[in-house]
């Protein structure tokens, strides 16, 4: 049985995400550190969503 209500099945829109971001406490992280994190996350996601045999680190 699918437990997700029909109205909640769709992905959140960018407007929804903006609202959710606004509910998170503001952080004091500097822009450079945030950019480093975004780059790291992008690279990890690209690597971890590759087929397993093509990953740079198969332990993850």
């Amino acid at each position, binding site marked *: 049985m699918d437990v997700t209500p029909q109205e909640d099945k769709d992905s959140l829109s960018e407007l929804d995400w903006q609202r959710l971001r606004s509910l998170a406490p503001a952080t004091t992280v500097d822009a450079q550190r945030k950019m480093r994190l975004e780059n790291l996350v992008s690279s990890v*996601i*690209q690597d971890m969503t590759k087929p397993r045999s093509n990953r740079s680190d198969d332990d993850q």
Partner: protein
Amino acid sequence: MTSKSLKRWQDLCQVAAHRGVQLLLGFSTPLVDPRHWDGLWVNHPATGAGIALSSALNLQSAIWVLAHELGHEFTCDPSLPAAKAHITNEENQKRWGQGRVRERDEEQANLWAAQELITPDEWRQVEKMFPASLQDMARFLELPVAAALWRARAEQQQRPAGLVGTVSLDTKAQVMLSKPIKGEGGHQNLLRRIQLGQKGKVLRLQREDFDRMREYLVKTRGGYCARYRAIMECALEAIHAAGGPLAFFRPSR
């Protein structure tokens, strides 16, 4: 977006902020379809801890995945190398919804997440309302069924062993339970254990077996389901009459 969901969301974001975990909410990256991943927790000396949630999530999944990734932050072994990453995708979400995990880290994160999202009082209330259905609990809680399943697992770990309840079986349940059990496996083992507790129309049902049936009803289709449902319907009547599962399952004498 209901107030219940938004409150859960805000609470999780507060936990992340307090812990110093950066959040990348509704994140997407070039070359990767956002539907191919759900969430990611990383911890690296150059960036500190961070959690990214895919832009393709719906609200319930976003809450559960954020809680799960935070679970890594709180349960990951600090003696491991400093750079760590755990990714969540649709495939392992589906497995978790059926109570299956491959790695201990993921199990620990799920247990942490479920307990963070669902307080003991809330769990007692929802289990009393819907003792036999994890799906109904999840619907009421406005969370994915995985959250209810892992909250139940967390409860099982803290509960003393040997709790038993007495169920009066109707004719249908007696017939279903007396059907021959062929082969070996999880269903067969469970049904054989339940059969051992049956004497005529009286069934002494172990709490562990009740919990197992409840999980199987989430992930099983077909013949075994009909047997579980027949037993569950009788158990449900007795549980409601006792005032809920906490009052119904008592230490075995």
